[in-house]
């Protein structure tokens, strides 16, 4: 394998990983934008989507409709979490809201464990999606699920871009992220905006959850934890609450992780996560507004 092909392969890996981080980070940022709340339950909403898809495939639904079933289940879960858990504490102190978010995480995870046990379940990915493509005489490999992940990520991000720049609801969501009371003064219905934000963010979590599980080949109730933490880092790098920042942060983090694993000495590879979280601390200390909003202060 030549150097160039190796690099190209790593670029494909980085884009593939980065797009998953970006999908999760975008959802986190949307919710943080309108509520100024770090929604730890976001990872569990991913789990809801992944398990729903697995169950649907189990009863004979083809992969793509099952994927959409998972997205819808996640959107419904997000809607219910907002209504049942977050709305009653919306004006409570930050600590209360943070604890609520952690409580929702524990409840969802444990319900998941009760139903599915904590051991990993096989993700029944159809063979057609596991089929791999080889380019340059086998030097570069990618599977259909890689292509599908990238295609669906791009499609959903283009859709989101249209939503937040062309529709009144999407513009309203951005306006409310920036200044909630000014949004109220122009007559935006804040309750409605928050509900929409949760539904959109959770649908993104559902898509990310299914794709994450499909790539990993397994689902389990705690599956949302790692992507949530990574997406959190990505969102902070980009500027928490900024949707474009979450995108940039997600792809950058994917690239960084692949860079550490593929190009640095093997002795460093085990420290990948330590490096990533050091980066998080460095950003929080020296550039809390992230890359996109250098002057903004954030409160977690």
């Amino acid at each position, binding site marked *: 394998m030549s150097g160039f092909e190796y690099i190209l392969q790593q670029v494909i890996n980085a884009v593939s990983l980065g797009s998953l981080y970006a999908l999760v980070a975008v959802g986190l940022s949307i919710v943080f934008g309108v509520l100024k709340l770090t929604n730890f339950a976001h990872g569990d909403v991913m789990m809801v989507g992944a398990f729903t898809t697995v169950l649907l495939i189990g009863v004979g639904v083809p992969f793509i409709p099952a994927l959409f079933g998972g997205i819808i289940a996640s959107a419904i879960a997000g809607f219910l979490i907002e209504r049942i858990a977050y709305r009653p504490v919306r004006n409570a102190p930050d600590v209360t809201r943070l604890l609520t978010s952690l409580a929702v995480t524990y409840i969802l995870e444990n319900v998941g464990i009760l139903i599915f046990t904590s051991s990993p379940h096989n993700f029944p990915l159809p063979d057609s999606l596991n089929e791999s493509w080889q380019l340059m005489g086998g030097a570069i490999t990618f599977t259909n699920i890689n292509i599908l992940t990238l295609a669906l990520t791009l499609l959903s991000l283009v859709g989101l871009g249209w939503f937040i720049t062309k529709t*009144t609801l999407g513009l309203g969501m*951005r306006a409310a992220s920036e200044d909630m009371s000014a949004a109220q003064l*122009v007559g935006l219905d804040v309750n409605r905006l928050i509900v929409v934000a949760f539904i959109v963010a959770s649908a993104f979590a559902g898509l990310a959850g299914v794709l994450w599980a499909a790539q990993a080949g397994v689902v389990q109730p705690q599956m949302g934890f790692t992507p949530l933490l990574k997406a959190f880092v990505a969102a902070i790098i980009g500027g928490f609450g900024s949707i474009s920042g979450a995108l940039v942060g997600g792809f950058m983090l994917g690239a960084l992780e692949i860079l550490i694993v593929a190009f640095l000495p093997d002795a460093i590879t085990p420290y990948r996560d330590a490096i990533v979280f050091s980066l998080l601390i460095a950003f929080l200390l020296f550039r809390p507004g992230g890359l996109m909003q250098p002057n903004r202060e954030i409160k977690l």
Partner: protein
Amino acid sequence: MSDPSKALFSVQNLEVRFGAVRALKGISLHVNKGEVVALLGANGAGKSTTLRSISGLSRPSSGDIFFAGQSISRVSSSQIVRLGIAHSPEGRRLFGSLTVAENLRLGSCTRTDKAGIIADTERMFALFPILRERHFQLAGTLSGGEQQQLALARALMAAPKLLLLDEPSLGVAPLLIKYIFAALTELKRQGMTMLLVEQNIKLALQLADRAYVLRTGAVALSGSSEELLSDDRVAQAYLGAA
């Protein structure tokens, strides 16, 4: 002065508390249709709190607010805009990461009459030509005076029956203050009803028909603009003297 109960808008014994602090200690005022009324007073007198409670951002602990014969003190902010009260807030509070056009569009978010929205956008461009030039620029990159024009236009895009204006001259260059008050005078001529909070007493009383002077959360003085312009007690209220 006309009968307050027949006014387009009235506030009756409004009291607003922030914890143990009574920010408004039972104020009453009214605005007739087509009238411009100024709300004067020193910093902390309760002017902005009055406007914020009219818009539903602060809830009164007692008293009531009536608009077009209906109590609005428990109505949601978005519904208050729908009923016809728009608010151009202190410090402008534009959406800085959105363009001028997007800010204007959100100003009309409570409306469904597409033709009316297009016509009103054109009216805003006629009133404030700089906004047409800056159409696709981010609101956060405008100068103070341009931002104030956009804040006014955004509020007007709701096609209000009553316009609440909080410090339209704040942070605006002197030349542009003149320009903005000329625009407000034109709006008045067209029949717009306004309740104006303004630090610049002279400018406010030149524009307004009547005024109320607030001192520490209560109405200290009220009267026609001519009367108040020659009343020493107005200046005293600003000095915060008892």
